[in-house]
């Protein structure tokens, strides 16, 4: 995908650009707010990576101006300011996601992927389907091969989250934030245990496994591993 990275820390920008290019993305770099805003307005990008604090024009200000002219390109805000309340500010200004430094490249790419694909995808559809697994978000009904599967409320939310990111990698942090709205690290392997419970419920009796673990990154729900 085509990414614009606006980051004034040149070395950090270089590392990230190299990493992203290695993964096959096209990356343009800008090193201050003004150039960043110009590039974002004129170029056509799949996703914007914005540092929160930039010389000349603040990252939040760029988000506001872009949204002000109706530009809805997905924006991921990167920041060395990591407090839950900073995050709220970033999202309120119109950012789509917020990631604190130092970040894992896997975490960053998983989020970029989720953002880029969200556009035009089955974002808010009620009926979700992957292979023979069907989820009706409104009726809160899950079936696999026509067989009804009973889940707790939280298990259902977890499955719905994974379904909405079907085919993508979701990290533990994304699950924590997206399903539980927890913006802290519970340290223990709680998420793994929740995932394995869900796996029991949806995959146990079937030959085709849908919920997969991606080593060192997270999980993915797909029929095409």
């Amino acid at each position, binding site marked *: 995908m085509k990414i614009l990275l606006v980051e004034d820390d040149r070395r950090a920008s270089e590392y990230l650009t*190299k990493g992203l290019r290695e993964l096959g993305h096209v990356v343009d770099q800008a090193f201050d707010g003004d150039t960043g805003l110009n590039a974002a307005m004129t170029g056509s990008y799949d996703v914007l990576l914005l540092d929160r604090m930039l010389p000349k024009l603040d990252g939040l200000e760029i988000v506001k101006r872009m949204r002000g002219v109706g530009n809805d390109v997905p924006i991921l805000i990167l920041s060395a*300011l990591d407090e839950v309340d900073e995050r709220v500010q970033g999202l309120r200004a119109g950012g789509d996601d917020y990631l604190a430094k*130092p970040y894992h490249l896997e975490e960053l790419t998983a989020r970029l992927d989720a953002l880029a694909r969200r556009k035009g995808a089955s974002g808010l559809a009620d009926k979700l389907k992957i292979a023979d697994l069907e989820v009706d978000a409104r009726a809160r009904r899950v079936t696999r091969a026509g067989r009804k599967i009973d889940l707790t409320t939280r298990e259902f939310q977890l499955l719905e989250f994974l379904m909405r990111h079907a085919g993508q990698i979701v990290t533990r942090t994304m699950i924590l934030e997206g399903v539980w709205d927890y913006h802290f690290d519970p*340290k223990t392997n709680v998420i793994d245990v929740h995932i394995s419970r869900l796996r029991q419920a949806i995959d146990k009796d079937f030959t085709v496994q849908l919920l997969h673990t991606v080593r060192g990154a997270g999980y993915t729900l797909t029929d095409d591993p």
Partner: protein
Amino acid sequence: MQLVRFLRSSIARVTVLHGLVLAASMIAVLAGVYLATARLIATEGDQLLSIEAQSLAEFFHDHDVDAFIGEVAERAEDPWTRGGVYELRNANGDFLAGNVVILPELKPSNSGFTEFEVAVARADTEASRSIRARIQDLGQGYRLLVGHDVQDRQAFRTVMLRSVIWAILVTLLFGAAGGWWLGHRISSTAQAINASAARIAAGNLTERLPLNGSGDEIDTLVARFNDLLARVDTLTTTLRAVLDSTAHDLRGHLNRIRGAAQEASLKATTPEEQQSIQTVLGEIDRLSDTLQGLLRIALAESGTAPLDDVDFSQIAQDLVEFYQPVADEPLVSEITPGLIVRGHRQLLAQSISNLLDNALKYAPHTPVGLRLTREGSIAVLDITDRGPGIPAEQRAYATMRFRRLPGSSGLPGSGLGLSLVAAVARLHQAELKLLDASPGLRVRLSIPLANT
């Protein structure tokens, strides 16, 4: 409860003190007036007695005995209209004239003033009258008693006493009322200051104590205090700015180090190289976790974290369900629903998460319980395990940063978990207690409920 609180208040003390001081001074003044007046009246009465006795003595010298007896008898007639009592006796003690019989009861040598009671028949009733008398030796053994009714004096004393009692009661009343008013003024000023001070202590350093504009001593004191606050505010803001920029800077550095290490890992050719790079990456993550932990504590302690009305019961319930699958024994929870507190949802959730994580970590294979109940205006959260507990002498240190308990070195953890809970407790004006669940540890967090 309320009475005890009232009695301990400054209003009560000022009221009582003011009343007592006023009453005491009133008693002193009235007692002085009473004594002076009583003495004046007594002296005047005695002078009158002396003058009459003197004039009778002169009469005795100038006339013969019979004429004198006549004179005394005449004066003694109808004593209760004229108010005088008389008794004249000769050297043998024979009664010669008068309207009372009292002299034999007094010692023969007795002269000067004396007081006694005389029964008086009046209409149908018999009354007792107080008499003060002077005994005069007339010479040749004749003794004369001249006395006055002093009932009036006693009546005066009674009236005086009654007025004193009334005056004291009235003074007490006025004194108490005045004291209450005075105390109320002081107390309402103190309460206003107290309320502001509580908000300031809770972290709102921009608030100032209210001045009443009178420029009195309290106002001056409050103004001084406000200057002090301004200074603390400046220092805190500066410190916060330093902390923020340092944190920002450190995160930037860590980010670059991580980027470099990650890049190196892509280029690594041997498993040994890959292994070392993974070690470096792991250490970077631990370092950034610790930094993150310290910053969260700083955020909670700065008191600048925004607070909202949050459903504490829901937060607790969610965390019980969150940890349920990783618990060796099922988590037992008893949660009173709908307990709303003024709080920071993420920090509260993280605190409960830390406590549950600790309980599951330090007391594995034992039942862990979470209980949330309401006690008056307080939400009381108890997290109890049946593990080894914390010895009483170590509980005070348990909430210190980087302090880890003996025997926990093999377990993961940064030593910041309980420190964060302690800081979050302070942010919420809550009380954090580590108690003995014998066996095991009970952590109790008591948070005031929101005013709804």
